[in-house]
């Protein structure tokens, strides 16, 4: 697992890092009367893939129609800085004869103060410094900003990603397992309690039913006797009536 030797990242006092978020470069000009251009310090790309060179700017004037954005490229080890992109009068002009022919794409929007370009199909010859220059008439005094592109075989992961992910995953797994075990135990105990209650309820029910049966039997006996008595008395009154006067009005027969 041999990594190519990385150039030591320049340590910027403002804490610039190699992500593609723009970062202000220290400027010696008065902050409100100049145009400020921001690019990241370094950008890493892998061979064959694409990379976005982002460039944003701040201007004290309104964005006019005459705004111009220019990108220059100085190859590593070379002294010449060639112009590869120009945007003027609302029209982007992409390199169609140089080394970035058919590889560059304009993704910026001057209205949104963004002058970014994308380079596809990276190669080792693209190692070098890209300069973004923005002029917004009448605000033309300003410093351009540079971004160094490093094309590597494999982009190194940031320090701490492996560390953090191992610790996070391990702690999460352990927490989940403990929670699961406790949940299972809790459900099991609850089921046990429910079963226990049902069992005791059944026992109580049995006792009650047996008590009820016994009481039912003792109550039925007097009822039977009462019915027998009643039938005898009705028979007696019926006989009396047939024997007695027939013209008597029959009053509430029992």
């Amino acid at each position, binding site marked *: *697992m041999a990594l190519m030797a990385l150039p030591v990242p320049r340590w910027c006092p403002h804490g610039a890092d190699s992500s593609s978020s723009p970062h202000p470069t220290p400027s010696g000009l008065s902050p409100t009367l100049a145009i400020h251009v921001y690019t990241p310090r370094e950008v890493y790309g892998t061979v064959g893939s694409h990379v976005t060179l982002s460039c944003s700017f701040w201007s004290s004037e309104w964005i006019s129609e005459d705004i111009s954005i220019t990108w220059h490229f100085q190859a590593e080890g070379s002294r010449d800085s060639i112009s590869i992109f120009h945007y003027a009068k609302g029209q982007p002009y992409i390199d169609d004869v140089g080394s970035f022919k058919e590889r560059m794409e304009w993704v910026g929007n001057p209205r949104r103060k963004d002058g970014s370009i994308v380079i596809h199909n990276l190669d080792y010859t693209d190692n070098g410094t890209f300069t973004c220059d923005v002029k917004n008439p009448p605000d033309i005094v300003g410093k351009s900003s540079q971004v160094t592109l490093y094309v590597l075989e494999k982009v*190194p*992961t*940031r*320090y*701490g990603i*492996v*560390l953090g992910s*191992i*610790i996070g995953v*391990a*702690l999460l797994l*352990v927490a989940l397992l*403990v929670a699961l075990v406790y949940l299972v135990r809790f459900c099991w105990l609850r089921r046990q309690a429910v079963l226990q209650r049902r069992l005791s309820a059944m026992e109580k029910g049995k006792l009650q039913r047996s008590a009820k049966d016994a009481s039912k039997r003792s109550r039925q006996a007097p009822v039977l006797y009462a019915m027998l008595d009643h039938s005898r008395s009705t028979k007696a009154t019926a006989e009396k009536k047939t024997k007695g006067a027939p013209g008597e009005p029959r009053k509430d027969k029992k």
Partner: protein
Amino acid sequence: MLLLLLGIIVLHVTVLVLLFVSTVVSQWLVNGGQTADLWQNCTSGTGAIFQCLTSSTNEWLQSVQAMMILSVIFSVLSLFLFFCQLFTLTKGGRFYLTGIFQILAGLCVMSGAAIFTVRHTDWHEASENTSYGFAYILAWLAFPLALASGIIYVILRKRE
């Protein structure tokens, strides 16, 4: 009874201290005036001048760091859980949770030390007089002690 409790706590705290020292101190590999460890490489120049640089960002080194940190975390959690379970467990219950976390801490420190042993040549060129420092030995010592402590917790039954 109290003696047993005291002995167990002393063992646990010893394991914790061993893990902590082994993680933090800069003495895993010693090479003459140079010491290298998990976090930085230090060179002692002339006299008592130390020059320290951060170690490489190799993935295996990061995994060793992660394992050592995890072992310390698990051991601390285990101690905390021991005191919790001491007061909440029913009579006759076993300190399962405490023992499991302590055993996990032991396994983590073992895997960390093992990965370091196998892969340290990735980020540190080994010369003839590179030898292992005392922090490395402490890590290997902490592993059986942590396992023993964890097993004692699992076997132990709570009494009044």
